[in-house]
């Protein structure tokens, strides 16, 4: 029982991170119909920016933890949003309106470029951050039956919930959200109605990248170890989560993320840690075979 609870908590934490990244995939897919393959690398960039920011704050002698976290969050979001903007501007915008495959190849190229740039600039070895937020809550007393929830885990789940709520509000209630949804439905018509489609797409990229940046910050706190390659696997799994939930659907992305996190944690704990990713992809294939448009996705209607 305690193992089950413990794995559920670990899975939820991991799933929140995947969900945060998956939202970026699903938004970009919704508006452009393309897989932003470099999105996982934006998350990796977020982790590196956070690490540097933590180091600067430590050197500057800022000891108040909430203040430090807030500052790092700000820095990470601003910079990853900037990187997201730059990637879109350089690698995707010139390809708008061309074939479907061209932006995908360009995105894979951008991903290879970012990974290698970081490897050259920041070194290929892993970087470590000493635990910033140690400790946690322990339930069911000390002993073999105890379940621990670390402070970082609480922070991750809480931050994800807050971000998700704010994000849903923005998409459903604000003027930008309306523009974003309009572009998603019919970019040409939206342009005719006087909305700057290019700007909306840029903003979508920046918001998605900002979310990935937050995920990067949280993962740095959670594991304390990062390297230039973490973006690939996290990106693939987050994209899997987006597809599992039904690509283009925001609640679907979050649900998919949580499911992937839970599957991974439980499979690693109860069956085998080596094959946990096989389980993730296997379940993805199974779900898609049974429900070809994902869990919460709307089936595509083809008009002739």
């Amino acid at each position, binding site marked *: 029982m305690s193992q089950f609870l413990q794995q559920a908590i670990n899975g939820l934490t991991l799933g929140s991170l995947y969900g945060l990244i998956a939202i970026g995939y699903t938004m970009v*897919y919704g508006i452009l119909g393309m*897989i932003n393959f470099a999105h996982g690398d934006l998350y990796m960039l977020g982790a*590196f*920016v956070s*690490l*540097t*920011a*933590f*180091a*600067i704050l*430590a*050197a500057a002698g800022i000891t108040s933890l909430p203040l430090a976290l807030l500052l790092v969050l700000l820095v990470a979001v601003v*910079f990853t949003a*900037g*990187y997201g903007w*730059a990637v879109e501007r*350089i*690698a995707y915008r*010139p*390809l708008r309106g*061309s*074939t*479907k*495959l*061209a932006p*995908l*190849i*360009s995105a*894979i*190229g*951008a991903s*290879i*470029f*970012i*990974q*290698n740039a970081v490897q*050259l*600039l*920041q070194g290929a070895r892993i*970087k*470590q*951050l*000493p635990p910033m937020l140690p400790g946690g809550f322990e339930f069911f007393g000390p002993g073999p039956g105890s379940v621990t929830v670390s402070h970082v885990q609480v922070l991750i789940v809480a931050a994800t919930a807050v971000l998700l709520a704010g994000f849903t509000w923005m998409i459903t209630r604000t003027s930008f959200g309306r523009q974003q949804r309009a572009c998603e439905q019919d970019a040409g018509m939206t342009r005719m109605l006087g909305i700057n489609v290019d700007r909306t797409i840029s903003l979508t990229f920046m918001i998605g990248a900002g979310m990935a940046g937050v995920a990067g910050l949280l993962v740095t706190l959670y594991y304390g170890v990062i390297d230039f390659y973490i973006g690939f696997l996290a990106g*693939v799994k987050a994209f899997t989560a987006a*597809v599992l939930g039904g690509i283009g659907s925001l609640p679907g992305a979050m649900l998919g993320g949580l499911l992937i996190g839970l599957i991974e944690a439980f499979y690693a704990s109860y069956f085998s840690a*080596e*094959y946990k*990713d*096989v389980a*993730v*992809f*296997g379940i*993805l*294939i199974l779900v*898609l*075979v049974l429900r*070809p448009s*994902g869990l919460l996705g709307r089936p*595509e209607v*083809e008009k002739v």
Partner: protein
Amino acid sequence: MTTTTTSRAADTPLPQRLSDAGFAALLTALLGIPLVGLTTVDVGGRVAVQTRWDWLLGAALMAFSGRLGVRWLFDRPAWRGRSARVQVDQAPAARRAGRMQLAGLGVTALALALPLVFHDNRYVVDTATTVLIYVMLGWGLNVVVGLAGLLDLGYVAFYAVGAYSYALLATQWGLSFWACLPLAGLLAASFGILLGYPTLRLRGDYLAIVTLGFGEIIRLVLVNWTALTHGPDGIGSIPRPTLFGHGFAPAGDLPTVAGLFGIDDAPWHRTVFLYLLILGLALLTNAFVLRLRKLPIGRAWEAMREDEVACRALGINATRVKLAAFALGAMLGGFAGVFFAARQGFISPESFTFSESAVILAIVVLGGSGSQFGVVLAAGILVLLPELGRHFSEYRMLLFGAAMVAIMVWRPGGLLSQRRPTLTSASAAETPTPAPNSAAIRSAA
């Protein structure tokens, strides 16, 4: 075709270009602060920051000159006409196909002549062999992506199946290269059907992620099933291919090719033999694929790529047609895998990562989906580019990624885009393309 007289007048004035480049440099400087300007070092368990403002300045200068250069190039009308648009070729299809055939023949002749000139230069022959492996993989994937229009991000799985089947069959059961080649091809094809059967009713991007997942599953199984595959250690001492039972080795107990022809053994025999072997395989593949394109199944692929709903309405069995594309593409990948294992003599899961799939897909798309010759061109560029960059090897993957983006932005349809049916009816081929003023005539009427 385009008028060039207005070019100078349409140019952006210099101050504007300078300020534009300055803006790019400023942005680079700002965005580069945490990654270029700063780095973290581990000082006794604590993270410390180092500054590198000179690097940041260098990056900003590079952005400035790069932006200026790119704008200058793209402002010239000759380039602008081609860039950022799927180009529509005006040349008649027949003349274009003739030119392509000529180029193909020329390259084939060059490929055949290569060992005559460079047989002693092992590096050249080896690199050419690598190019040909990628050409073959590209042609295999081209059946799936270029012809049938199915996005496959896990093609490397079939390459791995081919390589591991040969490695295991040869080292465990002692089967020869020539016996394994068809077996591995069949095995890879059945994996293709295994993956394709449940997933082919998925559309575009869903299929992409499923194939990616499948590729990862195969790789993870190879890494973790140590009893069969030796895991990350890989399989070594895989036997080399033989020529009618004659090996390439210094004279010993086994019959050798050198002994067969009564000549002195030389180390270059084997590399040249391997080169000729893959060249033969590649030429066979090419003939096979070109033939397929003219058969009903090939036409069905091309039709399916353009409009699946229309195909279904015409009574084409979509699942069967797609499965055929998947299986044939997988089989060709399997052949390439067998050759790869036989040539390397050692394989490990390292060779079958996602980035390999990405490179093969890049070859197909950069070459221009569906174009056989484009694949050769793109494979040549993508293999030779990192080779040329050997002297500054740290930067080669960086340049590789940048080149992928740049080529796509420059020519989104691929280097040689060929998205037209292989066969057209006689009347359609002879009718000239409608003149641009036909719309005007119609509106006047």
